[in-house]
């Protein structure tokens, strides 16, 4: 990949939460990169550190207790971690924006949806009140909501409609990158498909890159070019869709596919992964997945695997692949 095309580069990023109960190691030494217009899926169970990664990029890790302890986040070659508060504020909403998990709670209940969309436009574009409102109306139409509904309040919209409004806010200033944190988890299945389709269309139209956080491998297969699998704050496997889906290497990824019901492959029963996600305050020694790993070796218990490129662009963190 050419440097010029690189939009986002995350290098060796670690984010920890310092709480009374101990240090929660939410994100540990992750690396990934995203080109312009590309879509990457970030997959993992609840508590794997996906949302923290997203907040880290946005500069919205709640501090205290959270802190970025190491790493670089390069956006168009500039390190966001060294950016001033003002610079970050100018980036947010304009160059990258975020769609939060639950549309029910991500809109301010006491402001009209029009005001909430116009707010981000007025922050980043020098437009009059009137022009900003006009632009907000256009964007609302773009996500499939009639412009007349501008002056309505969030409680007058359904969940799917609210998520469209949230998407409208995120896309209002045509950002280069959108981070979508489980944008469809809180929605009904039929609405999920609509919202995903809408996001994909708009992304193509605007040429926006997207980091799609989800725990749904099906959604990733439909939407993404690349995928990274997270476990206990680490990326355990990463590569193109083909790499990861057809040439699965890491036992955890295999486990994720095994616990997925499938219509095409006839299996007698689902194969769940044994055990639970480890406590991020007290991660196991060696490979964090070893207590649950079906292929665990003696060395897994003591040595942390390093990132290994098994084929071009396909990275795995597993001792069996080193």
């Amino acid at each position, binding site marked *: 990949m050419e440097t010029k095309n690189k939009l986002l580069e995350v290098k060796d990023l670690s984010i920890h939460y310092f709480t009374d109960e101990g240090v929660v190691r939410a994100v540990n030494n992750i690396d990934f990169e995203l080109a312009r217009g590309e879509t990457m899926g970030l997959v993992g169970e609840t508590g794997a550190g996906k949302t923290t990664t997203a907040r880290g990029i*946005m500069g*919205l890790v709640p501090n*205290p207790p959270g802190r970025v302890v190491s790493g670089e986040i390069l956006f168009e070659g500039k390190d966001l971690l060294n950016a001033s508060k003002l610079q970050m*504020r*100018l*980036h*947010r*909403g*304009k160059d990258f*924006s*975020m769609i*939060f*998990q*639950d549309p029910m*709670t*991500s*809109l*301010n*209940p*006491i*402001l*009209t949806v029009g005001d*909430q969309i116009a*707010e*981000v436009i007025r*922050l*980043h574009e020098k437009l009059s009140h009137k022009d900003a409102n006009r632009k907000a109306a256009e964007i609302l139409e773009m996500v499939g909501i009639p412009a007349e509904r501008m002056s309505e*309040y969030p*409680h*007058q919209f359904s969940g799917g409609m609210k998520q469209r409004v*949230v998407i409208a*806010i*995120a896309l209002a200033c045509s950002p280069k990158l959108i981070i979508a944190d489980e944008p469809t988890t809180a929605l009904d299945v039929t609405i999920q498909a609509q919202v995903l389709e809408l996001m994909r269309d708009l992304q193509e139209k605007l040429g926006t890159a997207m980091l799609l956080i989800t725990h749904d491998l099906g959604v990733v297969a439909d939407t993404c070019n690349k995928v990274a699998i997270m476990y206990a704050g680490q990326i355990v496997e990463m590569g193109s869709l083909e790499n990861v889906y057809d040439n699965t290497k890491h036992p955890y990824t295999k486990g994720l596919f095994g616990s997925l019901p499938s219509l095409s492959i006839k299996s007698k029963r689902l194969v769940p992964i044994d055990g639970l996600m480890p406590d991020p305050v007290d991660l196991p020694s060696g490979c964090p997945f070893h207590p649950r790993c079906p292929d665990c070796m003696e060395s897994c218990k003591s040595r942390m695997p390093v990132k290994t490129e098994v084929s071009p662009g396909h990275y795995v963190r597993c001792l069996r692949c080193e």
Partner: protein
Amino acid sequence: MLRYIAKRIFLMIPVLLGISFVIFLLMYFTPGDPAQMILGDLATKEEVEALREEMGLNDSFFERYFRYMGDLLKGDLGTSYTTKLPVWDEISARLPVTAKVAFFVIVFAVLIGVPIGILSAVRQYTIIDSITRVMALLGITMPSFWFALLLVLLFSVKLGWLPASGLYGPAYYVLPIISISAASVAIITRTARSSMLEVIRQDYIDTARAKGQKERVVLFKHALLNALIPILTVVGIQFAGSLGGAVVNEQVFAIPGIGKLMVDAIKARNYPLVTGSVLVLSLLQSLVNLFIDLLYAFVDPRIRSQYSRSKKKTKALNGAVTAGAGTAAGKGE
């Protein structure tokens, strides 16, 4: 909206009728003979009996109650036993004093309590937060009349800076307002803090930050307006509290307000004056509650839009608001 206000005022009538009934009942069962009190110990039995008949004291409870209510509709609250003046004249001379004090108290409490509560929430776990929480706890636990005595001791007796009794100028208001408002300041601070803490954890606050909005605007536009709703509830409750506080502390500062009037009237068994005072104080509180409810609608579009919808929904919502007020009150105190 106008229709809603009219409806709310209409709904106040049965509550006020109920209050008048309860108070009248209490006064009916109060021992002692008003006629005897008026005439003094030297009066003969016949004189007392004649006066009882004249005052209608020998009629049945309901006769007396309905007569009282009939007079009330004509704006007549009866006649004070001791001064022989109309009760309304006595009350209307004192009411502005108490209302003024209670008003200043609540304004002071909001001006101090809300900003400190917000600051404490925004700076959670810092020294400022800890100090605020300790002060708030002290404010809630300290009896207001005792605080008043301590203030008088320090600022009037020891330092001689401020007057301790009467109400003859701005300086006279300082100690009463501080002492009465201590509890309200504390409770409003606590509510503002907890409500703000609740709100700044909400996703829409992060949405606002993700837009690139300035932290100041995030806090004051997005968070504060939402946090205001529980704060309003508590301000309403605290107004009632400040009326009560005024009633007690008027004794300490010898303020010629309705509280002192009422306590003196009770000691003198001057029932018409007691009944009138309680009614007027309750009416004042009901009006404030109504005002607060209307303010909700102003702040919260969810409530506003319910007003314009069907009757049934308004009813359901009223229930929700009362329940919300209940929990908020529980939290605040």
